[in-house]
C-alpha cells in the first residue's frame, strides 16, 4: 500500500503530528552533551516510597495481615 492508497481519515490524523524543529548547531562539545545529560529530567527513585492516599490503608492493613498469617501459621504446621 502506498501513501495515496491510505484512508483519508488516517491520512488526516497522521497530518496532525507536526514537529517544530528547534535551532541547534551541527556540532556539540562533550561538555555540552554532559551538561544535557545531567539536566535531563528523570523519575525520582524514591517515587515508590512517596505517601499517597492508599498508603494509609497499606500501613494499617499490612501489619494486621502479617499478624494474622503468623498467628494462624502454626495451625498448618502441626
Amino acid at each position, binding site marked *: 500500500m502506498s501513501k495515496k492508497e491510505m*484512508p483519508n481519515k*488516517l491520512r488526516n490524523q497522521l497530518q496532525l503530528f507536526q514537529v517544530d*524543529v528547534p535551532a541547534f548547531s551541527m*556540532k556539540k562539545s562533550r561538555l555540552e552533551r554532559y551538561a544535557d545529560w545531567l539536566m535531563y529530567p528523570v523519575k525520582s527513585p524514591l517515587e515508590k516510597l512517596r505517601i499517597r492516599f492508599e498508603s494509609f490503608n497499606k500501613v494499617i492493613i499490612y501489619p494486621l495481615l502479617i499478624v494474622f498469617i503468623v498467628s494462624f501459621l502454626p495451625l498448618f504446621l502441626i
Partner: protein
Amino acid sequence: MSLSSGQELDKNQRNLEILFLEYRKPIYRFVYRFTQDEQLSVDIVQDTFIKFNKYQSNYDEKQSNIKTYLFRIAYQLMVNRIKRRERMKKILPFLNQQLFNSEVTTEDRLTIQWALKMLSKEQRVVIILMYYHDLTQQNISDILEIPLGTVKSRVHHGLLKLRQLMEVEEGE
C-alpha cells in the same frame, strides 16, 4: 588545477554545512516522530553529520542518494542509542525515564502520537518514512537494509494496526 589539502578541507566543510542546512530538519523530524524525545533527536542529528563527515569517503552516489544515505546513518545511530538506553534502564530503572511519560491519560489515547508509539518499532519506522518523508518502499528497504517484501509486509500490518488504534473504518 588540483586543490591543496587545506582547500579540499574547506570545500568538504562547506559541503557538509550545506547538507546540514538541507537535511537537519527532515532527519530531526524522522527521529523525533520515532522516539518523541527532543534531546535524543538533536543528538542523533548532530551525530549523523559527524559520522557522515568522518566516513564521507565511503559514500558512493551511484549506489544510493544522499537522503537515503543520511537517513540510514541516522536510523542506525538511533537504533543503537535506543538499545543502549534499554540496557541502561534494566540496570538503573529510574534513569532515562521522562517525567511525564509513564501515565497515559484518556486524552492522550486516540492521538496519532500515542498510536504511533503503540506500533512495534519495525512497523513505526516504515510508516513514518513512507508517510512523512515520501520515501518509496525501495528507498525504505535501502535505509533499513531489509528486503523489499519485508517493507511491504510491515507497511501492511502497521497500517492495519494504526487503523484499529485510531478506529478508522476500512472504506473511509
